């Protein structure tokens, strides 16, 4: 099994403002991550103690490593703040198991805020 996976992340609807005003990001994530979504770079996952990197891990990772300001506008209680839509390869994440969706190499994850003015 590969030790890292590459994914593409996109922010829109105003969320990009929290991420250095950059809409598109390419990331390399560890293929296997701790069960508690600890995103520290040097964390060691013991044999049989991890899980495949999933969207819940990605949210924690984005909060810990890419977010520039006001974390509470993005993450809340281990998931995205209500009012943020998530798409996994252009499909509503509610159809893909939400945070439990296991990421695959080449996946594209989009986060859209609906909270900005109409």
């Amino acid at each position, binding site marked *: 099994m590969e030790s890292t996976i590459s994914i593409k992340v996109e922010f*829109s*609807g*105003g969320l990009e*403002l929290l991420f250095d005003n950059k809409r598109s990001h390419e990331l390399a994530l560890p293929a296997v991550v701790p069960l508690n979504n600890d995103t520290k770079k040097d964390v060691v996952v013991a044999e049989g103690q991890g899980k495949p990197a999933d969207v819940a891990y990605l949210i924690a990772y984005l909060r810990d490593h890419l977010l520039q300001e006001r974390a509470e506008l993005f993450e809340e209680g281990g998931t995205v*703040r*209500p*009012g943020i*839509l998530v*798409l996994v390869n*252009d*499909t*509503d994440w*509610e*159809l*893909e*198991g939400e945070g439990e*969706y296991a990421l695959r190499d080449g996946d594209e994850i*989009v986060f*859209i*805020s*609906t*909270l*900005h*003015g*109409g």
Partner: protein
Amino acid sequence: MPPRPCALCAKAKAMIKRPKTGQQICKDCFFYVFETEVHNTITEAKLFKPGDRVAIGASGGKDSTVLAYVMKALNERYNYGLNLFLLSIDEGITGYRDDSLETVKRNQQQYSMPLKILSYEELYGWTMDRIVSQVGRKNNCTFCGVFRRQALDRGAAMLSVDHIVTGHNADDIAETVLMNIMRGDIARLGRCTAICTQGEDTIRRSKPFKYAYEKEIVMYAYFKKLDYFSTECIYSPDAYRGHARVFLKDLEAVRPSAIIDIIHSGEAFEIKEEIKATQKVQQTCTRCGYMSSNALCKACTLLEGLERGMANAGITDRGTKQLRMQDAAGEASPTPDNLRTIPFFELKPTSTTMICLEPTP
């Protein structure tokens, strides 16, 4: 998880879970049901008749951009026979409205619709930037809200349209119901769920997205790759609405039907006759001719306060009283002759050849 087929066509892969129904459907079926529901809202409420001139209140944001797109599509698909216009209000907020108006100008081209932009500067002699520099960030939303409402009607009169449609969606209306309950604003609670409102002599105003969830509007814009602008206003946002909004989104996360249920509750409220009797009768403003519940309309009161350096005059009852007391005591010049006022409101311009539209970029 294996891909699930669409609950409607059973052929394509389901791409969205509808918040209203929980149904899992594909992209094409989603476009079809979203558009058809808006069409049903329009026809059941009999919003338009053939030949109507309709202005779409366009801010460049997601709701009005999707509204313009869907109105154009439905007008063509079902032969509504409407003449559609884009109407934008330029509040004069540097770094916010100037950017979003660029989006509207692109929409003008993309949808080939005539565009009219009316600015606060032109109508009131004040931009929001200048208002904020005088009143600070605390009450500026009051000015902006009151001025925008009247500016939309006046812009619509300039276009001699019969009707203004706005992009208010189900989430917005549910929020407003909650806010009116929490504020005890019975008059507004009574009318905030109405799909169409009409003042004494103003233009009809309606909300074709009354039952459309924000989630679906955003997904629609995303799947159709529509060009919209999404930055928060740089001045302090409406804090009270902000709380209502967060509360509503939390409710929606637990039970998605909450939004439509709150609208339903708002619609079902009935106001007692004796409460109705205490509500102010609609009249016209003695200074500018716009509909008003007092001798002077809110916009004229606010503008006079700004002009006389007493910004509070239009915000609180006490401020208004102070202004009038000064008048009576002769302390301030009683409404100086050179005071900037709003041009008198006339519904239909006699000549439609005077309409000045934005040139296509």
